[in-house]
């Protein structure tokens, strides 16, 4: 496969509102045909960054290069970029067909071409039978598809999606995540999605950027970010993580109770510094073998059954918070545990990540 081409280069972009810095010197490359996620807690600057890509905000500093051309000061109606709004922003006085045609009418295309392109996108988004309805006659999922069709019909170089699934209920959201991925594949347009839902970006994105306080913390594939978070914040924000506070030692972290957690110490951390050792719940085994590097005995405080797996809260002397452990349903059936039981937990040194505190 050839080297993927960079479609959009965000180069040292900052945005200040008065004395508040919403976006602070972010640089990112988004590749052609990629499903890219901007992820972060509310107030991290992801929406401001998205609005700068759409043209509704102008960067205070930096460049936004689309196909090598700086579009930072191009008005929204003059960029080959479309945004799907969080509120969908469908025109309430227009039918579904009129909503979808609107963007093509602005390009002054021939009527016949508008008609055929609108028909095609309504078919792709399964909206043909709703073409004559007004937005208020549609369900949430249908509205979302109209918003998507309205943006996609313009065949933008880049489609921006602002929390596209936020207004849907949980079950529909799961279905729409896969639907969006399928559509992105089908139309071959680069998608940039903004979300605060880490699970959503893990499922959908080819690559994702984690933002906090206007800064970029990490940009990589979901797998790389999940397995090798750049810092403690990313480790905590993406998925679930157990943390053991302590001091850096030669080959791990010395916990407050004197136990040693074996793991690879990053070069930047010197012995004696405050640090946290961390491990994912699914990497912890119950009743480990004797040669497992890290073992600790604790008391089961609570059990939560999730169908696919069982989640245990285990109180240990290692940390003030109980350890979260995920046990598969069949493992739990083979050796049942119940609340109040003493259990031994174990995990490998390779599964431990150590971060500065």
């Amino acid at each position, binding site marked *: 496969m050839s080297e993927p081409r960079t479609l959009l280069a965000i180069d040292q972009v900052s945005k200040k509102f008065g004395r508040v810095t919403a976006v602070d010197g972010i640089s990112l490359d988004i590749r052609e045909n990629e499903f890219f996620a901007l992820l972060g807690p509310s107030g991290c600057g992801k929406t401001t960054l998205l609005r700068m890509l*759409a043209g509704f905000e102008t960067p205070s500093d930096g460049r936004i290069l689309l196909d090598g051309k700086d579009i930072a000061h191009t008005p929204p*109606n003059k960029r080959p970029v*479309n945004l799907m709004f969080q509120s969908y*922003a469908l*025109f309430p006085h227009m039918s579904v067909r009129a909503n979808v045609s*609107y963007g093509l009418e*602005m390009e002054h295309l021939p009527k016949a071409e508008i008609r055929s392109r609108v028909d095609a996108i309504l078919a792709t988004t399964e909206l043909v039978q709703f073409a004559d309805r007004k937005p208020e006659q549609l369900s949430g999922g249908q509205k979302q598809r109209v918003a998507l069709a309205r943006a996609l019909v*313009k065949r933008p170089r880049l489609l921006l999606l602002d929390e596209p699934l936020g207004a849907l209920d949980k079950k529909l959201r799961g279905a729409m995540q896969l639907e969006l991925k399928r559509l992105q594949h089908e139309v071959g347009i680069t998608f940039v999605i903004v979300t605060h839902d880490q699970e959503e970006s893990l499922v959908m994105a080819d690559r994702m950027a984690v933002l906090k306080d206007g800064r970029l913390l990490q940009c990589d594939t979901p797998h790389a970010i999940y397995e090798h978070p750049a810092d403690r914040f990313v480790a905590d924000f993406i998925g679930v993580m157990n943390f053991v506070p302590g001091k850096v030692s030669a080959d791990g972290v010395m916990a407050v109770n004197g136990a040693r957690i074996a793991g690879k110490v990053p070069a930047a951390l010197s012995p004696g510094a405050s640090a946290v050792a961390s491990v994912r719940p699914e990497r912890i085994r119950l009743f480990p073998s004797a040669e497992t590097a890290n073992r600790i005995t604790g008391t089961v405080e609570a059990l939560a059954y999730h169908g696919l797996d069982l989640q245990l809260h285990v109180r240990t002397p290692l940390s003030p918070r109980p350890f979260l452990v995920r046990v598969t349903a069949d493992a739990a059936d083979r050796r049942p545990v119940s609340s109040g039981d003493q259990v031994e937990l174990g995990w490998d040194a390779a599964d431990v990540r150590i971060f500065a505190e």
Partner: protein
Amino acid sequence: MAPALVWLTALMVVPCALVLALAFFRRGIYGGIDYTFTFENFGLVFDPLYAGIFLNSARIAGTATLIAVVVGYAAAYAIAAAPRRWQPIFLFFAVLPFWSNYLIRTYAWIVLLNREGLITQLLRWFGYTGEPPSMLYTEGAVIAGLVYNYLPFVILACYAPLSRLNPELAEASRDLGASAATTFRRVILPLTVPGIAAGAVFVFVLSIGNFVTPALLGGGRFQMIGNLVYDQFLTANDWPFGAALAMALIAIMLLVLMAQALAANRAAGRAAEAKGDADG
């Protein structure tokens, strides 16, 4: 319910019925009323002289409505676009003239438009030396007075739908390739038409029957029906004809109001029907 009904009957239905009854009698030779039944008064309403005054009133009221809608909509738009915390303050100032008496507000225009009034003095101050412009006692002065008095209604009526408009709709239009002007014409304006219609009907109905403004700023000639009615009752002493004119005026107002109510009802009905579909 019952007290409201009594109030409405005593203060609205009975007086109107009395005026209506009056319109079917003759005028007595020395004023007063000759109680013989006739349709003559209504026939006279359609006499070219009086029908002309009706048309003239409609034209003046229509012009005032047009100007009030354009100015009022622009003001409402500017207020709705201002930062949220400033909006109530701007609205307060827009409606402030309402707190003073209608007559005083109209007299203020005499002070302004008078041959040696504020505007002339201002022109002089800028070095103008010619004849003072004659502005008072013109149709323009009457229209200015009507626009000024009813402008707050239009601002309030247009502000309501403009402030409720989701700002993302305008952004979506821009995002889809529309210029600011096209966005206004195809998205903002159609969604705020109900407010414009409500404000316009208000100005038109209040203007066409107005008699104080044409009397004070129009110099006392009957330019408008309100003055004609006033004159029939208080000067000419022809109460039956005055009553017939008043009834014709009320009929025009009711027609305009009913047309607006019908249109608003249709729009509401369509919305309700649409809601029902989505729920069903």
